[in-house]
């Protein structure tokens, strides 16, 4: 629970976020606890969004020569029509 958010995998972060929302919706927490959970939830959402957007968009292909893996080039440049 108290694990640093940046050390979480995306899957774990989503999982924890779900747990938090469910707990909050169940009710029964003190206002203080629910505020803590809420702020953790907000941080998790921010983190997940960052993860979703950090992937760079690249389509590449490996070039083999004489059965040896040689270099990686842009796919469209090599095989695009």
């Amino acid at each position: 629970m108290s694990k640093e958010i940046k050390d979480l995998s995306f899957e774990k972060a989503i999982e924890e976020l779900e747990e938090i929302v469910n707990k909050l919706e169940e009710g029964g927490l003190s206002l203080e606890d629910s505020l803590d959970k809420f702020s953790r939830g907000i941080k998790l959402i921010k983190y997940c969004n960052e993860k979703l957007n950090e992937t760079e968009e690249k389509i590449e292909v490996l070039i083999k020569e004489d059965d040896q893996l040689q270099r990686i080039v842009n796919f469209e440049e090599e095989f695009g029509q």
Partner: protein
Amino acid sequence: MEYKIDNIYSVSQISSYLEALFSTDDVLQDLWVKGEVSNFYKANSGHLYFTVKDENSQLKTVMFRSRSSKLDFELEDGMEIAVHGYINVYKVRGEYQLYADQIVPEGKGTLYEQFEKLKQKLKEEGLFKEENKKRIPLIPKKIGIVTSPTGAAIRDMLSVVNRRFKNVSILVVPSLVQGDKAAKQIVEGINYLNKRDDIDLIIVSRGGGSIEDLWPFNEEVVARAIYGSKVPVISGVGHETDFTIADFVADLRAPTPSAAAELAIANREEIETSLDNLAKRLLHNQKSRITNAKDKLSSIARRRIFQKPEELFVDKMQRLDELIQNLKWNMEKSLNKSKEKFNILNSKLDTLSPLKTIKRGYSITYDKDFNPITDIKKVKKGQVINTTVINGQFESEVKNIKEDGGLDE
């Protein structure tokens, strides 16, 4: 010699008759024959001619190029094989022969048999078990695709990626996907992607084709490479109806290459939606939570006790007054009781006092130690005694003692 020639046939007629007979025979139209290859000859046209024989017999066989080009091994004399095809008449020579469409080196069995055998073996080893399957990452950072870079499969997959989702990184590892070198290259591709540290999902794929075309994906080495992959593997081989060993062992089977791409990235869309939903729920919940708390607070603040706090004490003040009143009353009561008691005692004391008696003419006589003399026997002749009357005392000497003449006789 004389011949009856009413019923005479031409050679062609006989050949045609035999051809018709052969063609309608169920056994001859679809059969497997096993034996040893001899007189093998590959014509420039690509057709293969050979004889299949055993100790006693020979069967002429032909395999046309359309079929022979798909063989994944080189036929040669002396090889033990099983041949599938049909038998018919080659009218030019008046010979029957086997028209082959499939050849399997003996010992290996048919492709179907090999498939079933390997499938059974790997299943028993646990390679297909659900619990051994790895989870497909929700948002793969970089997908490695092992396929032909020029095939239909990669085109299909990239068009799915471009249409549906841009934010994904892909590394294509080129591989042959049919023929006898394909399996080795597919394995190399999977192993290469596992050595990199940036790949979190692998797709192995090729487009549709015959069972021979898809065969590399039924090879044990490929199955083992997929099973051994640390990175989760999606298989997308052929069409919906094609099932390969690779499909069984993969962490996720996609029916086609396009579907494989969809499965790899569909998660992302779902995740974005569900993340949105979670965020909405979180905010909504907290909002209503705070509103509720505020409402509760203000309803508490509205209660009497906060409006008229003095009411907290009124009761107690009243009670205090009562107690003081009680105390006063009790004290008075006990004081009166004491007074009364005092008066009674006082009047009793008055009654018992000897003063009045003495006033009436009585006196008290003491010995020298001022003990009152109450007994005649304690008096002696000549004893000096003291007498007290109401207004003084006098001393006297006892002259005579009479024991009779007392007051209590």
